[in-house]
Structures are given as structure tokens and as C-alpha cells.
């Protein structure tokens, strides 16, 4: 049975990675299990300069979902290379670094610095964070925006480039097609859904930032539909995410057309969940008599 996948020229030992922002740089989870078992580790967002993030409260729980408004807090790319990447070098798996910025030059500064790092295998360009005021989602919600950022990043990057798409658009497959046309090597989708939560007793917004991004099983059926529509529209591989809590949801996204999957807030509920997802995908393949994991991606019967 072969569980390995090739995403834009990078060989993954299995199709499972982590969703940016839910796994740090892996260290906190390495306390629980051998994180080199993952197909890839996708890090939290990294910007050119340190970002303080948003005021607290930054997180709220809703039924089958989590609303977050972290605001991409991070210590900046230089610190990331020095601390996080130095650690990730010791982990025998692929490293996907999530790149964020307010402006094109800010994105490019991070891309150029990370392009020179051997330990970085792929770059995921975050054009879909709903929690920062400029940049972020702005590039990911129009075909013009995604074309501009993708072209600029592709010109500078020496690593394969994944564009992380926002679901907060009228037709996500159009954005995916524009990214592909501009040179994207892969897509990851979906980022969180812009949402909010009002505390009825205080009559105030629960999150200090008023709005946040919704993720978790609550959004899974919408994410699956979006992956299905986009997979039909593009030829580049898709890394799918949105409410994967076990192998079943991972398989569902792959049947919708994804080549790989990312596990997000499920890491908060069960720190060893990614290992469980990998095992359960294997069990599913056995059950269906599949020899190669790509058979799931091609396996939807319409």
C-alpha cells in the first residue's frame, strides 16, 4: 500500500499536514508524538517584521466550531529562521512555511529569505487571513489580487508555492484558476470563514477584534463543496482543510478532489489526532482495496 503523494515535485510520505496556526512550529506537539510521521508540517504565519497580533479575547467556541482572531502574531522571519527552522531541521519531514504580509514587498522579503533556507520545502502564501486590516485577505478575494501576489512571489521563490485561498468569495474556483494561471504550484483551501459571536449578556462582541475566522466541523460541508468545485477547475494539486477531525473527513476531502489534507483545530481537541488521521486513511484504503492513496483522489463516483 502506497500512502506517499507528490505535491508540486515534493514527495510526502503521506498526504497529511497541519493547518497553519494550529500547530505552532511543531514543538508543542513533539511532546506528544513523533511529528516526523507527518507528510509535512505547515508552520504558523511568518511576516517580515514581528507582529504583536490582536487584543484578547482572541478565541471563542461555537457549536462544532472555533472562532479565532489571533491576528498572525509572530516574531518575524529572522527569529523564525533562527529558532523555529533550526528546530524543524531536526525533524525528518517536509516543512511548509506559511508566509504573511501587509504589502507585496513584505511578502517578498519573507519569500526571499526563506528561499535560501534548505530546511524549507514549500511556501504557503497566506492571502486569506480575515483577521488583519490590510494585506491578508485583500489579495485573496479578487482574481486581480491573487494574480498580482502569485506572479510576484513566483518570480522570487526558489521553492514550490502554495496559495492558500479564502472561502470569503463568490466563486472560489475562479480565484483558484487565477492563481494557477499566474503560476501557483498548488492550492490550499479553505482558510477560515469571516464570522462573529455576540455575548448576549454583556451585549458585546465576544472577540476583541469583533470578527474572527470560523473553522472546525461547522464549516466542513461548505469546504468540501469548495474543494470539489475548485478541483474540477484546476490541474494543480489541492491541499484541503476545514473541520477534519478524523480519517473520515480527510477521505471525504480527497474524494472531492484533494491530493492532500491539513488538520487544524482538531489538534486542539486531541494533540495526537494527525497520527490517527494517517492511520485511518490507511484503514480506509485497505477497506476499499486501494493500493495507492491517489486512488482516493480519483475515487469519487459521480
Amino acid at each position: 500500500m502506497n500512502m506517499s503523494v507528490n505535491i508540486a515535485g515534493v514527495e510526502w510520505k503521506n498526504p497529511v499536514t497541519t493547518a497553519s496556526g494550529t500547530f505552532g512550529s511543531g514543538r508543542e506537539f513533539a511532546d506528544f508524538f513523533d511529528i516526523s510521521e507527518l507528510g509535512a508540517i505547515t508552520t504558523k504565519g511568518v511576516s517580515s517584521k514581528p507582529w504583536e497580533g490582536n487584543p484578547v479575547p482572541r478565541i471563542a467556541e461555537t457549536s462544532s466550531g472555533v472562532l479565532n482572531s489571533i491576528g498572525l502574531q509572530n516574531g518575524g522571519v529572522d527569529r523564525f529562521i533562527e529558532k523555529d527552522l533550526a528546530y524543524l531541521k531536526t525533524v525528518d519531514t517536509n516543512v511548509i512555511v506559511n508566509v504573511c504580509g501587509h504589502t507585496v514587498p513584505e511578502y517578498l522579503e519573507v519569500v526571499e529569505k526563506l528561499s535560501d533556507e534548505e530546511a524549507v520545502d514549500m511556501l504557503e502564501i497566506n492571502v486569506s487571513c480575515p483577521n488583519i486590516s490590510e494585506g491578508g485577505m485583500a489579495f485573496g478575494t479578487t482574481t486581480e489580487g491573487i494574480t498580482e501576489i502569485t506572479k510576484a512571489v513566483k518570480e522570487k521563490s526558489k521553492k514550490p508555492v502554495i496559495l492558500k485561498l479564502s472561502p470569503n468569495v463568490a466563486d472560489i474556483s475562479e480565484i483558484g484558476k487565477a492563481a494557477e494561471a499566474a503560476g501557483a504550484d498548488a492550492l490550499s483551501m479553505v482558510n477560515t470563514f469571516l464570522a462573529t459571536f455576540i455575548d448576549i449578556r454583556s451585549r458585546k462582541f465576544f472577540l476583541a477584534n469583533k470578527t474572527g475566522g470560523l473553522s472546525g466541523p461547522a464549516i466542513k460541508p461548505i469546504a468540501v463543496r469548495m474543494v470539489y468545485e475548485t478541483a474540477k477547475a484546476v490541474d494543480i494539486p489541492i491541499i484541503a482543510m476545514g473541520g477534519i477531525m478524523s480519517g473520515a473527513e480527510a477521505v471525504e476531502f480527497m474524494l472531492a478532489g484533494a491530493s492532500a489534507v491539513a488538520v487544524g483545530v482538531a489538534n486542539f481537541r486531541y494533540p495526537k489526532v494527525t497520527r490517527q488521521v494517517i492511520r485511518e486513511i490507511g484503514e480506509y484504503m485497505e477497506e476499499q482495496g486501494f493500493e495507492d492513496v491517489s486512488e482516493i483522489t480519483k475515487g469519487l463516483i459521480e
Partner: protein
Amino acid sequence: MDAISLLGSQKDCFSAIIKRNEPIAENIFEMWIEAPVIAMSAYCGQFVNIYLRNQAKILPRPFAICSIDHSKGWIRVVYRVGKHGTGTREITYMYPGTRVNITGPHGTTFPMSHKKCLLIGGGVGIPPLLQLAVSLVDVFGKRPDIVLGYRNDDTFLVDEFEELGTVHIATEDGSRGIKGTVMDAIAQNRVGAEIIYACGPVPMLKAVKEYALEKDLTAYISLEARMGCGLGACLSCVCKTSEVNKGTGVKNARVCKEGPVFEVREVEL
């Protein structure tokens, strides 16, 4: 524990047995959990994450460890059930004999000191100080001064604190101890100290900070925060720090990782 854990992973997810779970005051419950590995490795000030059975509630609930029974391998948490609580109510229905998923211990510990210690607790900030008092008595054989603030005479854990140190009580309505705040109780009882440990609501911690700065005392405070993962990954539970934090690289710190215990000068309240 699985093989990887035995090979050197420091933490694990445990399915622990609930031994007791009952009210000890109005809307305050204590729960004893049989979790030998956590009991063995935990220190005062640390917390555990408890995972709810309800699949619709994804985030763990963090609880400070109130006390540890090393001989039985049990830990105790004391928690308040909010009137409109979404989750803690479910925890009150976790019956003895059933299992609960739990991780820990997480976070920093109260640094122990041989100096003259003053413990200040307010409301549900009181329980984490109990194991500290136990440890101080065990290690240094000295009874600390303990000042506890409650809303009214519906107090909890007082008897246990009285076995460990000199207890002064303040209540908002004056129905037990002095009427006023913990700071009023310190002033009225002329409680002296060389080092302070405090846990409670933010206004109380602000008063403690002011007092510690004025008297030039070291003070360790344990912060509460709305957490996501409770493991240090999601950056939800940060507090503002006076300097760039080593763990985050910016001027804030993760309460679940660099905290919950901070020296009062490190953080902005």
C-alpha cells in the same frame, strides 16, 4: 502510554478515571481524578486540560491543579460553574467511575522560596494556592500567611488552608472575616511578607502588584486567560509583557506556556 511515549516523549493524552466530583460551595465543584503520571510530574501552579465528551465543543477546558495526592496518584481541580456556562456544566455531570480525557501538567510553576511567604487568593483563584501551601510546608516546614477573599460566608477550602498556615479571610459582604478586599485584610491584620504568591481576579492582582512594587517585594501571580489549545501552539491566551518575551519574540507571553505563573513585574495587567 504507547511506545513513543516510553521512548522519551514528555507528555501524553490520558484517559483518566474520575474519583469524586461534587459541590463544595454554591456553583463551586471539586473533582478528584486518578491520573498517576500527571500526579507524579505536576508541581504547584500548573494546570491540566480537560476535554469534553460533547463533540460539538472542541476546545479543552483548562483547570489549575488544586492539590495532588501522591500516594493515590490523584489530582484535584476546583472549578466554578458559570450561570450561563457552556461546558463547565457538562463537567459536573462527569460521574465517579467514568473516564475523562486529560493532558498535563502544563505551564509554569510557583517558584518555591524559604522566605516568609504570603499567599493571596480571591474566589476561584484560591484553589491553585493550596498545593503551593502544601509544598511550602513540606519543603521548608514553615507555615505561610494566607489571605483569602470570598464573596460571602459560602467559603471553600478554608479548613485545609488552616492546617497549613495562618489564614485571614475577607468577604465582600462582611459575613465572614473582615468586610472588604484581601488588601484590606492584609492591612487590618498587619500581615508581613518577604515574598508574595497570588491568584484571583484582575483587580485583585492589580492591587497586589501595586503593593509589591511599593514594598519592593517579589510577587508571583497566576493568570487566568481564555485559552485555545492550552499547549502553546495557537497564541490565543496571550497577556501583555513589559519586555519582548523570549518565548514569543514580541511584547506578549502565552499564559499557557510562559505562564500561568509570572513575576508581577513581567506582565502588564
